[in-house]
């Protein structure tokens, strides 16, 4: 760990040299740089086209639907509600997530349970994914570790605004990514099925 150097804006804005101010050499350098990329990449693409598999790819991008970017385990993806071993939601409807949510996208209604050791549970638990900003505050705020953002689902879509509101059953049914593996979930499909 090196020390962090604080650079003032005035300091950063250094005086340009004569050649830089003329601009043309810099333009030239820029063109050379981009042109080099162009030709190198074109060469690699061409090699590939003719079946010569170069170790170096011509592009840094992922071919998205077929190839997916590996997700960091900390990536905040679609929410789910964790369950107790007996299948009931861990959530006790404390409203912490609802309170902390900066997008006001969580709506919980609490109800009383007869079991004095649980006392309280969510009657309904809706997340409006259309409003969610995926900040993860709800996960941070949850004292019961009930709401988690570990489904690995990032493709979220629906055909209506109402379809973007996930209810408690959906949230409880979503598996964590660790259980689901890399198998992609067509989330839209799931929504439509309901």
């Amino acid at each position, binding site marked *: 760990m090196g020390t962090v150097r604080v650079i003032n804006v005035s300091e950063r804005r250094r005086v340009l040299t004569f050649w830089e101010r003329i601009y043309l050499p810099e333009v030239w350098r820029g063109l050379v740089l981009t042109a080099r990329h162009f030709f190198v990449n074109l060469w690699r693409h061409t090699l590939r086209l003719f079946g010569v598999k170069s170790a170096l790819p011509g592009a840094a991008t992922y071919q998205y639907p077929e190839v997916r970017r590996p997700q960091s385990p900390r990536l905040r993806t679609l929410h789910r509600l964790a369950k107790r071993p007996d299948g009931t939601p861990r959530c*006790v*409807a*404390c*409203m*912490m997530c*609802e*309170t902390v949510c900066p997008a006001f996208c969580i*709506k*919980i*209604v*609490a*109800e*009383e349970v007869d079991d*004095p*050791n*649980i*006392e*309280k549970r969510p009657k309904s638990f809706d997340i409006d994914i259309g409003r969610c900003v995926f900040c993860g505050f709800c996960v941070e705020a949850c*004292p*019961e570790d009930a709401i988690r953002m570990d489904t690995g689902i990032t493709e979220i879509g629906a055909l209506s605004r109402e379809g973007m509101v996930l209810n408690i059953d959906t949230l409880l049914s979503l598996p964590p990514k660790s259980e689901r593996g890399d198998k992609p979930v067509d989330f839209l499909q799931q929504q439509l099925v309901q």
Partner: protein
Amino acid sequence: MPKVTIDDLTIDVPAGTTVIQAAEKLGIYIPRYCYHPGLSIAGSCRMCLVEIEKAPKLQIACYTFVTEGMIVRTTTEKVIVARQAILEFLLANHPLDCPVCDQAGECKLQEFYMQFGQYDSTLLENKLKKHKAMPIGPHIMLDSERCILCSRCVRFVDEVSKTHELGIFNRGDHSELLPVKGVTVDNPYSGCLADVCPVGALTDRDFRFKVRVWYLDKTESVCHGCSRGCNIEIHANRRRSHHNDGKLVARLKPRFNGEVNGHWMCDAGRYSYKRFESEDRLLQPLVRLTGKGQEKADWTLALSQVDEQVTHQIGRTGVAAAAVIATPDLSNEELYAVRRLFMQGMKIEKIAHRCPADPNGVEDNLLRKSDTFANTYGAGLIIGAPHTADPTVETILEAAGAGKLKTLFIVGDGLLSRYSADVLREKLKNVETLITIQTHGSVLTELATVALPMTTFAETDGTICNSEGRVQHFDQAIPPVGQSRPLLEMLVDLANRWELKAAPRLPESCFAELAGNVEYFSGLTYSKIGDAGVNPSRRSAATATA
């Protein structure tokens, strides 16, 4: 007057003042659990320990009386360590179930721990298990695990309600707050137990899990349950519409007023908030058009119907056959507006406010009054006093029953608690034009030619006089429910249609006019009434003796 110095601030206080009270006067808040200004001193929580010069040990601020030249320090290292220790002890067996605890957000244990706690726990031991979620009465739920044994509730039932239902049983850390065997906590003030409990041990069953307290907005108001006029706070959930079953008002809490209700309020008043948004609220004007049944209408139609029907009827049968009943559950402003329009504008002579006694009224030594009208005193001053004939409600209903009245205005809900539906139906059957201005639907609105929906006291500003004549102000807590409107506005609109002069539309200006016209209120304004209210009858008594 001993002079005491607390944290370098000096104050003169009367002898017999405790350090905690003196500190409060200086604006220094000493944390406490067992100390409650409305109860005797227990000195058992030890949270209010302070350092007093020349005392070898820390002293409890709640039971140390000030002496001349006493020097108290509340922020020394020793005090801070002691507070941390007390909090640590209290939490040693307190369950950390704040997520399900309804007290969370107004819990003194949470608050003081955030403020004074030591944060790094050294506790490795298991917590004791005690009774969880135990309903001990119709209104109160006990969770003895959460109890910190401050004994406030025990002292409340011993000293205030004097019903002695609660006790602390067992010894040491097995001590447990429980109701006495075979007893349910159902005294008429049991709701106060949830207020005095500094933690979540005693919670209100009615309020439980409806809405978290930090979503509530507090409005200062005055209870309209009886003529005591207890000072209250209306807690409304305006921020999360899906909570509290979609209703706004979530609970009522007593507000301290040493002259009226102290720290307390009765259960009847406490749970009366359900009326505000009950199913039977009249949400829309009802109009009975000629040759048709009663129909829902908009305000324009309803008011034009009142205009037409009343003008027609009075033109036919005369003002002598018209009467007004204004029940004393209305505010001073509303009563004044009634007087202004009907008495002075329309020249109706028969305006009654005096109702028979409430058969269900209860009176006790603490708060409850048998007169269940909030503003009998004010009604007497505003409607009763200038009245020459001063008929009672009884005589007006008799006259109506005898067919002598053809036009009748009924303003306010008061009749319903005094007369049965059958009696009212019988008495009012000969009234041809019956205009009711009510908050709730009832037999009266069924019979009405035009029924106008009015706001309750939670939905408008105003003042009332309690049985001692104390003028107290209440604020609007929630917007009008449904299409109901404040009475003042309605009467202004009606007056405009009739080209009469009405009382001002806003309660504050209306009160200013009232103060100019009724001697009792002279010189008063809303700002002079303030939060605690004033009692002009005492003022006049004081000036009389002077």
